[in-house]
């Protein structure tokens, strides 16, 4: 659980550090933070996708607010995020990055936006997976698309500047990029883009919640 993003980070580091490492002195930290956050997204949505169906035996026997099953999945992913961040913090404290008081606070904001985003998606995924059992494999492909579409292992600078606004329509890119800005560079985040990502995540969360509440009442019949 904790090892997965770390090993992924090691592989990516071995493969790409000679390509992108010379230009960016903080490539190691940037890459590690990026893999941790993208792993949170992938693990969170995958657990969320299975969250209803994997608890079918309980859902068919006891009536409880079904949202709890989803929050439990999010909590599980959040726990592994926490342990990953502890490992990251060790690297971070021993690196010559500027320590600023506001950095962890801003970072917390990005984690919250990310959690909102995951939960919003899970409201849809968990219900749809009951009806479409091949969604799990489709979602795997989507996840790897997300991984490549988000600047995790490559720096933003490899993308032409005119496309940057396009990249930042992806809330994950905003979250990862700005987390790096505040934690590793010690700079202030890009607030308009943050606000946009927060709006997107909140709208998704609210729409998801409405969709979930409407559909979950009859979902037990499709198990």
């Amino acid at each position, binding site marked *: 659980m904790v090892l997965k993003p770390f090993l992924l980070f090691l592989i990516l580091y071995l493969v790409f550090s000679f390509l992108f490492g010379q230009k960016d002195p903080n490539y190691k930290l940037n890459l590690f933070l990026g893999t941790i956050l993208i792993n949170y997204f992938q693990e969170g949505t995958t657990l969320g996708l299975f969250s209803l169906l994997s608890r079918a035996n309980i859902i*068919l026997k*006891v*009536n409880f607010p079904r949202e709890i099953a989803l929050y439990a999945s999010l909590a599980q992913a959040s726990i592994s995020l926490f342990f990953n961040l502890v490992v990251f913090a060790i690297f971070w404290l021993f690196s010559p990055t500027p320590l600023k008081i506001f950095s962890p606070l801003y970072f917390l904001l990005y984690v919250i936006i990310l959690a909102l985003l995951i939960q919003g998606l899970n409201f849809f995924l968990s219900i749809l997976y009951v009806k479409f*059992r*091949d969604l799990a494999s489709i979602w795997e492909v989507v996840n790897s698309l997300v991984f490549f579409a988000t600047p995790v292992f490559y720096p933003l600078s490899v993308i032409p500047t005119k496309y940057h606004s396009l990249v930042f329509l992806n809330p994950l890119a905003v979250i990862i990029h700005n987390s790096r800005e505040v934690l590793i560079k010690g700079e202030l985040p890009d607030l308009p883009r943050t606000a946009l990502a927060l709006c997107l995540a909140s709208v998704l969360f609210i729409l998801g919640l409405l969709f979930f509440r409407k559909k979950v009442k009859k979902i037990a*019949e499709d198990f």
Partner: protein
Amino acid sequence: MIKVENISKTFKIPHEKRETFREYLFSFFKPLEYEKFQALKNVSFEVRDGQWLGIIGANGSGKSTLLKILAGIYLPDSGRIEIKSKAVPFLELGVGFNPELSARDNIFLNGIILGMTKSEVERKFERIVQFAEIERFLDTKLKNFSSGMQVRLAFSIAIQVEADVYILDEVLAVGDSAFQKKSQEEFKKMKEAEKTVLLVSHDMETIKKYCQEVIWLDKGEIKKQGKAEEVINAYLGIGGNQ
């Protein structure tokens, strides 16, 4: 009090299974054919406070569907349900048991799933363990329990849940004869405490013993409702081998 008015429930049973995107894509223009199965037709009844109502019927007559609707797991297509106090459904014993965890952890897990709070489980922990007679195996993983011991534990947790209305689906016959005797004692206590109970069972002796009134479900409809003795006799007369 439980009040059930005109409940109907129909399930759609598709002729071919279609539960992946691929299947939807390849049969986009083919209408999905399905059969309708009416599990419940206009079922109405009332259970007064302190009353035990038995529900009998052949397999597939809609008993479990009815209980699942009362438990809030399925929504009825039409009709109304009113349950005016804290109701606990026991549709199965040991819901949420995790075989990889110890008996101690499973007591908490199952107790909380059944609606107890953590401190409530802590308070009743001793009684649960004593009743199940598993003192020696408290920290043994559940997967190393015999199946009899597992249901005994599950039953012991279930009877500690405090509620006014119990919905019981075939949970009486668990364990060896000594344990069954003990659980019969618990049921007597429940009866003396004037709990409201909805009891589904194939064991006519138990039904006769505890329920004044019985409902006979047949193909989703109430075929007969009334005094326990009368309904059971009518049911046995036609049903035969039960």
